[in-house]
């Protein structure tokens, strides 16, 4: 009996150590990546100059007289993400309301897995479909020489952020106590009035979290955007070929060398700072909600 007890104790101890190691490992990866990005991203910024790097409008990394200004990439990422949010949030929110409040149970049971499937589609597939169908469509519809531009990228991004917006805001809407709605109905409000004046305001922090999550997804997306945006380092314009922060790193990495390579790490650092900020905002919203 004693032997068994001892074995159990030793086993428990071993497992505890294993859990701890795995816990530390996950944190170690985050710290490692952060440290590496800072160490490899700062030298180029120092060499180029922070102002020239962040506010320079010309990116010509392999020219005889190289210029490393990433303002076009920053603006493109910000514009692209904002526009995708402007298109994606209303659609996603209304879809979430439909799923949570309006849809018959059977229909919702079919819709929900479909939305989840949308989230599971690899981004390269979004890019491929965008490249084969959306880009020629945009070219013909707007009578352009080429359909690979910011507009196509915005459409693809707006579709890609839908699933996260839908599922997070649906959860938030469902968490609104039923009594709120019943009180609203009792006062003679219609369904639409109840949804927009009672349910949505009550779920607003959850919906805000969904929007921030969508921003995070849109700003970090590389593959799909690379296939539809054209990747030329222009200052953004709706029908201009543009390059995002993510695609700036991805498209030049394979053959880069010297300062060009270091500058790509610096772009990754800037992108990392953006994502950190978005996560901080998300944490702030969630914490405020708990209070």
């Amino acid at each position, binding site marked *: 009996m004693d032997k068994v007890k001892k074995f159990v104790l030793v086993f428990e101890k071993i497992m505890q150590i294993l859990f701890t190691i795995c816990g530390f490992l996950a944190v170690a990866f985050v710290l490692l990546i952060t440290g590496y990005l800072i160490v490899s991203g700062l030298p180029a910024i120092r060499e180029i100059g922070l102002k020239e790097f962040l506010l320079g409008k010309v990116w*010509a*990394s*392999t*020219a*005889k007289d190289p210029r490393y200004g990433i303002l076009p990439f920053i603006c493109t990422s910000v514009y692209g993400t904002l526009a995708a949010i402007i298109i994606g949030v209303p659609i996603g929110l209304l879809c979430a309301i439909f799923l949570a409040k309006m849809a018959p149970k059977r229909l919702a049971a079919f819709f929900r897995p479909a939305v989840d499937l949308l989230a599971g589609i690899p981004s390269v597939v979004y890019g491929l479909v965008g*490249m*084969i169908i959306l*880009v*020629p469509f945009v*070219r013909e519809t707007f009578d*352009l*020489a*080429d*359909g*690979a531009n910011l507009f196509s990228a915005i459409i693809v991004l707006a579709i890609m952020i839908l699933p996260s917006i839908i599922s997070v805001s649906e959860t938030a809407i469902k968490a609104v106590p039923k009594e709120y709605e019943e009180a609203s109905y009792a006062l003679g409000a219609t369904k639409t009035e109840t949804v927009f004046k009672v349910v949505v305001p009550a779920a607003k922090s959850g919906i805000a979290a969904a929007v921030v999550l969508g921003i995070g997804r849109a700003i970090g997306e590389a593959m799909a955007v*690379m*296939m539809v945006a*054209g*990747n*030329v380092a222009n200052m953004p314009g709706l029908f201009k*070929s543009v*390059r995002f922060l993510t695609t700036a790193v*991805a*498209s*030049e990495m*394979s*053959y*880069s*060398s010297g300062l*060009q390579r270091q500058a790509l790490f610096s772009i990754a650092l800037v992108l990392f700072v953006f994502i950190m900020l978005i996560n901080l905002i998300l944490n702030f919203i969630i914490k405020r909600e708990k209070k």
Partner: protein
Amino acid sequence: MKKILSLVLALGMTLTALAGCGSEGESSAGGSGTGLSGTVATDGSTSMETVIEFLREAFTEENPDVEVTYNPTGSSSGIEAVSAGRCDIGLASRDLKDEEKETLTGTVIAIDGIAIIVNNENAVENLTLDQIAQIYKGEITNWSEVGGADAEIACIGREAGSGTRDGFESITGTEDLCKYSQELTSTGDVIQTVANNPNAIGYASLASVKDTVKMITVDGVEANVDTIQSGEYKVQRNFVMVTKTGAELSEAAQAFFEFATSADADSLIEQAGAVPVKR
């Protein structure tokens, strides 16, 4: 019970597959031993990466004890490295300049032929080298200016740092002047995009172009292996191995050099997307 059985089966299958891999590797490695050993250091043109990669793979298969290293630094640094003795063989995707020829010898191992492609629906059959340069510089913006339909031209190219882009821009004299409407990261992407867009013009290695797009003639010369070897087709450049004149290569480096310039290398060079030299 069923679960255990299927697990055992799966394990058995994986092991068999792995064993297959192992024996295959052994037979190819153990097939021939030439007794050569040492390191061959190559340094230079980034555009030659694929060609060198194919040559290196085949060469080390025959001479397993020889290690071939490749340092992608650019043609000029490669030439400098070989003249300073920092590597055995320099790689340049351009011909040697006269002052470089005083101390160095260049041997052309392959030719990089770059096809100019347009959509199959495009009526344009021929462009001059100058017209191509003007199109990419944004001085000609409509196909009607060069005998095509009235449509704006979309210039498709490769990303900065790509060997094909470097080759195209240096041959047409458009370095850092191109106004691209798309910069794509692979030859396949360029061909696919041109195939999908009736307004597009693009460039790609000759070997990768299939009939999904139309190759146009440049100054009236069609791009094919013969016109590239004879030098009639203009959008081409040489891949050159650079060695020190008079200095003797190490045994391993000499063997690699001879392999790269032999007829055996021709099919490898073709696989790598370049055109072998005429013998």
